[in-house]
């Protein structure tokens, strides 16, 4: 066994190297490629803009609280936002960062204890995502400070605890990821089981919001939900770390501070003792592939080149838990939304989402394709797949096909993935909402146009910001510039368009409005497609 000092020293060595191995500063310093250096600076500016947007959004929340005299809820809200972000970010990254990462063999052959490797991987994940959480925390601290005028002591306490806030939700997410990996490791089709379990868990999380709202409603505690401040207090009563944080900053509670910091540290030690014990067996199972060796040559099918490329993309998606969960989650959620709407009813769903606001639900109908697109457009495989070629890029480059054919194949696969989900969800919701046939057809066409736009726009981002030198596929699936540039404007635009459709639908003929939107989406899809074709000539 290693002594405590040796373990600490090994922790520091490994953590430092993990950070250095993905440090943009290190790449900038030692990379002679001017284009790559330019990309690093561009990425830094892009990231700074996103942090600024997050901070602006958080300050706006505080302004809202300040204007309504509820600024006292800001610390709890801050803790809840960070906890939720930390939980979700970590849960999706566990497989790829904590388990099943590329350099596993190299690290495990060095004299590290399994829990040292696992713990350092977690700390690495924590440090890399810390800027996101700090931008939320610091912005809300500024907002809170401006409106609440607290004592000066609050600021250092807030800053210190901001470093602890994400730890507990990250550990819970890691533990869940570990349990899923542990269960999956016992099955032959480890990857598939892991993907299914992760998706089931995410769907439960998404459903939880509606279930909780429904429970609160049925339990006649509606009165307590009238104010947002009381709602956040309720949440803090359930999620104690948020309460500890709020008590520490608003009531100067030393107990709150100690509980948050102490629980974080103790939970870290406990989780990584548990994870460390089965770390090698889980990774062995996740990295091993059973071979039946029973294959008998049968009649083989021919595909045209574009379809062959699309089939390759399908196999790539199914071969990676992280890719499947991130790439196909929107489609699954859209299908579920369609099914749930069909079962529960369009009006009831709208009532739950809008908290029984008094308005005619029919005005929301023109927004149906956009609502479904909100899920489907969350991710486009075309934004990730060019980068995911990684070290296999040579395969497509050495094939006697033009790059435009390769990208057409990637786009075709995304259309195969998105269109059936879009059509199914649209039909379900239209049937449930009693939408006339002609409108249903128009919504279906709009859905297809939106899928085409998502596919082609994703491909523009994916090709333009292709990154092949990743250490871990999560880097391009969840954190890649291509994905961020695809997703953020897309999501904000969809939210804006949904509001605009509802607003304009009340003032003009909604069919004409749908046709206009179909034309706009088609135009954008065509422009994006043409851009992909241009980019394909450069690669």
């Amino acid at each position, binding site marked *: *066994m*290693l002594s405590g000092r040796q373990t600490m020293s*090994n922790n520091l*060595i*490994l953590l430092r*190297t993990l950070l*250095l*191995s*993905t*440090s943009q500063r*290190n*790449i900038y310093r*030692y*990379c002679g490629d001017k284009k790559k250096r330019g990309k690093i600076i561009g990425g830094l500016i892009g990231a700074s803009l996103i942090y600024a947007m997050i901070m602006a959004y958080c300050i706006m929340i505080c302004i809202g609280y300040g204007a309504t005299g509820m600024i006292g809820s800001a610390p709890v809200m801050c803790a809840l936002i960070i906890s939720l972000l930390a939980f979700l970010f970590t849960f999706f990254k566990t497989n790829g960062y904590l388990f099943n990462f*590329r*350099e*596993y*063999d*190299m690290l*495990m*052959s*060095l*004299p*590290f*204890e*399994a829990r040292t490797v696992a713990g350092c991987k977690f700390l690495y994940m924590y440090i890399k995502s810390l800027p996101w959480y700090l931008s939320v925390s610091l912005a809300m601290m500024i907002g809170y400070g401006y409106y609440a005028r607290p004592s000066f002591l609050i600021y250092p306490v807030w800053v210190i605890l901001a470093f602890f806030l994400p730890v507990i939700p990250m550990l819970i997410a890691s533990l869940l990821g570990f349990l899923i990996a542990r269960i999956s490791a016992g099955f*032959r089709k480890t990857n598939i089981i892991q993907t299914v379990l992760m998706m089931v868990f995410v769907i439960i999380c998404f459903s939880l919001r509606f279930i909780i709202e429904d429970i609160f409603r049925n339990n006649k505690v509606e009165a307590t939900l009238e104010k947002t401040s009381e709602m956040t207090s309720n949440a803090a009563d359930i999620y104690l770390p948020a309460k500890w944080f709020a008590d520490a900053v608003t009531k100067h509670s030393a107990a709150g501070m100690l509980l948050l910091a102490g629980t974080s540290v103790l939970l870290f030690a406990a989780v990584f003792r548990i994870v460390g014990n089965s770390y*090698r*067996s889980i*990774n*062995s*199972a996740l990295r*091993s*592939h*059973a*071979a*039946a*060796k029973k294959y008998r040559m049968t009649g083989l099918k021919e595909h045209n080149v574009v379809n062959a490329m699309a089939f390759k993309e399908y196999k790539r998606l199914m071969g990676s838990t992280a890719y499947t969960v991130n790439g196909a989650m929107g489609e699954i959620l859209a299908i579920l939304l369609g099914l749930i709407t069909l079962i529960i009813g369009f009006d009831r769903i709208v009532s739950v989402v809008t908290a029984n606001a008094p308005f005619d639900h029919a005005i929301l109908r023109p927004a149906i394709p956009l609502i479904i697109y909100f899920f489907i457009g969350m991710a486009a495989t075309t934004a990730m797949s060019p980068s995911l070629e990684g070290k296999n890029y040579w395969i497509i480059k050495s094939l006697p096909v033009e790059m435009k054919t390769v990208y057409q194949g990637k786009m075709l696969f995304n259309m195969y993935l998105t269109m059936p989900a879009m059509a199914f969800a649209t039909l379900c919701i239209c049937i449930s909402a009693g939408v006339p046939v002609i409108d249903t057809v128009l919504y279906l066409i709009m859905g297809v146009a939106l899928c085409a736009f998502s596919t082609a726009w994703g491909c523009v981002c994916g090709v333009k910001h292709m990154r092949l*030198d990743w*250490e871990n596929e999560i880097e391009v699936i969840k954190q890649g510039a291509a994905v961020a540039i695809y997703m953020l404007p897309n999501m904000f635009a969809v939210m804006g368009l949904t509001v605009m459709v509802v607003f304009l639908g009340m003032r003009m003929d909604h069919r004409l409005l749908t046709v206009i939107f179909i034309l706009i989406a088609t135009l954008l899809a065509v422009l994006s497609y043409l851009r992909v074709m241009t980019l394909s000539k450069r690669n």
Partner: protein
Amino acid sequence: MLEIRNYSKTYGEGKKAADNVSLTVESGDIYGFIGHNGAGKSTTIRAVVGVLDFTEGEIFIDGHSVKDEPVECKRVTAYIPDNPDLYENLTGMQYLNFVADVFGIGAAEREEIIRKYADMFEITDSLGDMISSYSHGMKQKVAIISALIHDPKLMVLDEPFVGLDPKAAFILKEIMREMCRNGSAIFFSTHVLDVAEKLCNKVAIIRKGSIIATGTMEEITEGHSLEEVFLGDAFREADHE
């Protein structure tokens, strides 16, 4: 130095990648591990170096159990995989420094060792470049230098000559001989039967997860070439099927 006792590894539903493998590598041995693709060589090697979990059998390195004392085993072992996954965004020197830190090698000593082997492999000038800019062979050379940094008692190599230029392959063979003269042991897998025959004093042949022959080179070949022995076995098996 290395003792594998009744090691078995099962994947999926009962398919054994390694079946009751037993062999012993003594100090001073250069032990070749040969078998066709998918025979179970890498599965065995990955278990030896503590990367792959296993439940059946025991593996001991320098008297320590790989299962129960993995860190002690790894302190005296070096592993060079067939396709080293190094940190692409570190420079060669940063990577070697990392490994030296892990093994607690002093600054002066590590500098001397790195300089010696980097000069031998003619990559000293490239150590300041990112590993992502290296060819496969250069990455292999960095992996070899990192394996030699702590003067291991046991060196385990998986297809070490793949991707190395003839000069580097020659140097590696010389290093392996030198290590064995100094009392270390080498255990390596290879498909290059000529190399195995000239380099190894002992050899084990694995087929479909089971060891079918093991012993000194003379005992295995009995006056024939290793290629004849290995291919003869393979053809006989094909005839049976």
